[in-house]
C-alpha cells in the first residue's frame, strides 16, 4: 500500500467537472510532481489533498488513513504557497513558530524547533525581521521553514518557485532537492514548469483539462510519452512532431518525410518497425526530440539505429553549450541539437544523424501513441 493514495478523485464546481477521476499514488519518501498547463486542475488537486477544497467524489488516504473529512490542520501536512503567505505582522521566528503555537507546543520547544530549522535553512540572522524586510528568496526560505518546522507526513508545494527570478529559481530548486534527500519526507509539488518537474520528481503526473494524461518516472514520461500532449509538453525545446508516411520498401517498414524540392527523406524506424507494420501506408506523426537529431560525431554511440542524412539548414542558433539547427521536414520546422562547435551554416546542406531509438509515433487523429 502506498503512502499517499489519491483514489478516483473528482472535483465539481456546480455542473462543471474540473477533475475527472484522478488516481495516483506515491511511496513514502517519494517526490510527486503534478505538472500541466494553467487551468489543468493541478492546484485544485493539491488543495484537495491539503483539505482547503472539498472532495466531490473519491478518496484521499495518507498513510492508510482516509482524510477526506479531516480539517487541514489534522491531516499532518504542511504547505508552501505560491505567494509564500507569510503573516506580515509577525517576525520570521513568529511566522515559523505559529503552527506550533496553534498546536499548543510549549514555548521552550518552539524556540528550539525554530532555531533548528533556521540553522538548516541558514537564516538564523533573519529571525527577528518582518517579512517586508526580506528579499524574495529569503521569503521563500521562511515559507519553507514554516513547513519544515512542523515535521509533517507530507509536504505540499504550490508553485513555490514561480515568483523568483531565473537564477534564484535554479538555486532554490537544488535546495529543495537537497532538503528532500536529507529529510526523506513525502512531497507533492505543483508546477507548470516541466524542467522543475523533470529535475525534482521521482514520479511525474501530467494533467490536462482535469484528466491525468500520464503518470510515471521522469524518464518514462520523457522518453515514452503516451500521447502527443505529453510529448509536446515535456522537454525544452519541445519534441519535434513531424508528419510522416509509413511505407514498405524492399520488404522493410520505413518512415518517409516529405521535403521541399527534394526526394523524401527515408528513415529506418529500428525497433519500432514491428508495431509500425499495423499502420502501413498511413500518415503518422513522428516524434523525435532535438537531442536525438545531432551532427554525426555528437550521436549516441550506444544507439542501435542511427540514420545519417543530408538536410538543408535554415537557421543556426548557437546557445553556448549547444547549437540548435533548424531544418524543414514534412512541412514543419525541425530542431536539431548539435554540439556547440559543429560547423554548420544557415542556407547550406549539412549532415544530420537521427537516433531512431528515441523516435516515437503518434496517430494524428487520436493523438495517441502508435509505436
Amino acid at each position, binding site marked *: 500500500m502506498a503512502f499517499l493514495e489519491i483514489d478516483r478523485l473528482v472535483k465539481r464546481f456546480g455542473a462543471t467537472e474540473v477533475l475527472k477521476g484522478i488516481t495516483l499514488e506515491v511511496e513514502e519518501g517519494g517526490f510527486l510532481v503534478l505538472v500541466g498547463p494553467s487551468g489543468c486542475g493541478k492546484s485544485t488537486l493539491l488543495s484537495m489533498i491539503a483539505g482547503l477544497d472539498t472532495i466531490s467524489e473519491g478518496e484521499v488516504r495518507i498513510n492508510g488513513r482516509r482524510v477526506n473529512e479531516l480539517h*487541514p*490542520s489534522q491531516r499532518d501536512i*504542511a504547505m508552501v504557497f505560491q*505567494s509564500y*503567505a507569510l*503573516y*506580515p505582522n509577525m517576525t520570521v521566528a513568529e511566522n515559523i513558530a505559529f503552527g506550533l503555537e496553534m498546536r499548543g507546543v510549549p514555548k521552550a520547544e518552539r524556540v528550539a524547533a525554530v532555531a533548528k530549522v533556521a540553522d538548516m535553512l541558514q537564516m538564523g540572522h533573519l529571525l527577528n525581521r518582518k517579512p517586508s524586510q526580506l528579499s524574495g528568496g529569503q521569503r521563500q526560505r521562511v515559507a519553507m521553514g514554516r513547513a519544515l518546522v512542523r515535521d509533517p507526513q507530507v509536504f505540499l508545494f504550490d508553485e513555490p518557485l514561480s515568483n523568483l527570478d531565473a537564477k534564484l529559481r535554479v538555486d532554490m530548486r537544488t535546495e529543495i532537492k537537497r532538503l528532500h534527500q536529507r529529510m526523506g519526507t513525502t512531497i507533492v509539488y505543483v508546477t507548470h514548469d516541466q524542467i522543475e518537474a523533470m529535475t525534482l520528481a521521482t514520479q511525474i503526473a501530467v494533467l490536462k483539462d482535469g484528466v491525468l494524461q500520464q503518470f510515471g518516472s521522469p524518464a518514462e514520461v520523457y522518453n515514452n510519452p503516451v500521447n502527443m500532449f505529453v510529448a509536446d509538453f515535456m522537454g525544452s525545446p519541445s519534441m519535434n512532431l513531424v508528419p510522416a508516411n509509413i511505407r514498405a520498401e524492399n520488404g522493410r517498414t520505413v518512415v518517409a518525410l516529405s521535403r521541399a524540392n527534394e526526394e523524401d527523406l527515408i528513415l529506418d524506424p529500428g525497433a519500432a518497425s514491428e508495431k509500425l507494420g499495423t499502420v502501413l501506408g498511413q500518415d503518422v506523426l513522428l516524434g523525435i526530440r532535438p537531442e536525438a537529431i545531432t551532427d554525426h560525431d555528437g550521436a549516441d554511440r550506444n544507439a542501435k539505429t542511427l540514420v545519417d542524412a543530408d538536410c538543408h539548414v535554415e537557421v543556426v542558433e548557437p546557445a553556448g553549450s549547444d547549437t540548435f539547427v533548424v531544418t524543414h521536414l514534412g512541412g514543419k520546422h525541425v530542431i536539431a541539437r548539435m554540439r556547440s562547435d559543429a560547423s554548420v551554416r544557415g542556407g547550406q546542406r549539412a549532415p544530420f544523424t537521427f537516433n531512431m531509438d528515441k523516435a516515437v509515433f503518434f496517430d494524428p487523429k487520436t493523438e495517441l501513441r502508435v509505436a
Partner: protein
Amino acid sequence: MSAALAASRRTPGSSIVPRIVIYGLLIFFALIYLIPFFVMLVTSLKTMPEIQQGNMLALPKAPTIDPWIRAWGEACVGLTCEGIHGYFWNSIKMVVPAVAISTILGALNGYVLTKWRFKGHKLVFGLMLFACFIPFQAVLLPMATVLGEFGQIGKALTNATGFAFGFGNPTVNLVFVHVVYGLGFTTLFFRNYYEAFPTELVKAAMVDGASFFQIFRRVLLPNSLPIIVVTVIYQFTNIWNDFLFASAYAGSGDVMPMTVALNNVVNTSTGVVEYNVNMAAAMIAAMPTLLVYVLAGRYFVRGLMAGAVKG
C-alpha cells in the same frame, strides 16, 4: 491642468502663473471654511461687553477662558445650571462602546463575507449595504417601538431580579441604535478591505491549525489598522454628531448626550444671550471629533501589507 504642467516642464519660467492661481484658489476656499471656526474661537475668548460693541472678526483685546469654564461648569441647560460637563461624559459613555462594538462586528462580518463565503453571501451583503441607504427618519418610529419593548423587558427584569441589565437605559438604547445603524457602513468598509486581503494567508493559517477566531484575531486584525482607523473616525464622528436619535430617545433629563445639551444651552434664554459661553460650549462639543482626526489621522498608514505576498 496636465497640459499646463507639461508645458511648465518644458519651460521652467512659465510655471509660476498656474501655480499662483491654484494655490490662490486653495487658500481662498480654506479661509472660507476656517472663518466660522475662527469666529467661534475668538468669540469664546472675549468678554460679553467686547462682543456687544465689537467686530466679529476682531481678536480679543483681553483674552479670557472664563466663558469656557462657565460653559463646562455653570451654563444652564433648561432649568439646571451645572454646565455641560455631565452631558459631555454622557456622550463619551455612549460613543466609545458604540464605536467599538460596531467596528468589531463590522470586521467580523467582513471576514465572514470574504473568507468564509456561504451560499447567498452576496445577497446578505447586498441587504447590509441597503442599510446604508435607509434614512434616519425612516428608522425613528420602528426603533422607538423596539426600544419601548426593551423598556418593558427592563421593568420585568427589575421586578424579578432587582436589576435591569441595561434594558431601558437611554445610553444603552443609543448604543444599540448606533451599532445597528452603523453596521451597514462598517461591514462595507471591512468587506472591501478584506476582499483584497490575500486569501492564501487565511489558508496558511488554517493549515497551521488556527481556528476561525484565531485567524481573525492573529492574522486579519493585526493587518487591518488602516481600515480600523477609517472606520473608527467615520463612526466616531457620526455618532458623536448625531442629534436626531439622541433627541428622540434621550432628549431630556440627565441622560442627554452632548449634542442635545448644546442645543438646549443655546436655546435657554435667561436675560442676555451669552454668545461667548455658547461658543465655548460648541467648541467643547466639537473637540473630541477634532482630537480623533488629529490623533488617529497619523495612523493612516499605507503599505502595511507589504511583504505578505510577493512585493
